[in-house]
């Protein structure tokens, strides 16, 4: 893991598949290369979904995922 500073936070708490991934992509598109997006989700599927999405999608990189009590926090970096 490298250092990062969160540029923007996306709150998709309460939303279910496919919205966490879809809204993350929409947010990422409005960011610049080097920016880091923080995604707050309650959907347990978001851990696997956002991981798979970041791995397969060009221009993004998953920096970190944290599982809290109720909230899953994901950090995505825009690479291009």
């Amino acid at each position, binding site marked *: 893991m490298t250092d990062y500073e969160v540029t923007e936070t996306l709150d998709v708490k*309460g*939303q*279910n*598949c*496919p*919205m966490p*991934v*879809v809204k*993350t*992509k*929409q947010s990422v598109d409005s960011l610049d290369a080097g920016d880091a997006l923080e995604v707050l989700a309650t959907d347990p599927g978001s851990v696997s979904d956002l991981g798979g*999405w970041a791995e*397969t*999608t*060009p*221009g993004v990189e998953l920096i970190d995922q944290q599982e809290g009590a109720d909230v899953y926090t994901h950090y995505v970096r825009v690479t291009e």
Partner: protein
Amino acid sequence: MSADTTDGAEVAPDELDRAELAARVDELEARLADVEADDDDGQPKMSIIATKGTLDMAYPPLILASTAAAFGYEVTVFHTFWGLDILHEERSKELKLSSVGNPNMPVPNVIGALPGMDRMTTKMMEKRIADNDTATIEELIETSLDMGVEFQACQMTIDLMDYDEADFYDGVTTGVGAATAIQDMADADIQLLV
């Protein structure tokens, strides 16, 4: 080309082989360049054919389309027969769930076939969708359109069902037929019939 042969008699055939190989490599490289050029911009494509218009069967094509768009895919969804109702602005908000023909339903078919049962199971499903904060069909269509998904309404079915082009969500492509769907499927990396 290097000539490491010491025996003069073998120089000719050896050099011929090397020349043939070099020519073959050139030919293959040219063909590879052609193939890569045909691959457009390298953006992956997905083509879905949506044929069903029940509430449960409207979800899979929309969820997959919006998710593929999030993955950077160029997505087309060709809606035909009852699948056309998903794109119909009014009818998409009134999609129903059948209470018969699904063995997973908690009621036997003979009860499910009674008048009003489809309405009841549909209401139950709609309540579950709302309670679970699952996106509505309308939300999924609007989001997909925002993300560049192309929704196509089969012209033959529009005529068959006597729908009007104005009945569909803004941004829906009309005036397309099976040939368009085939073309999209031939170009696509993923093809699905739902």
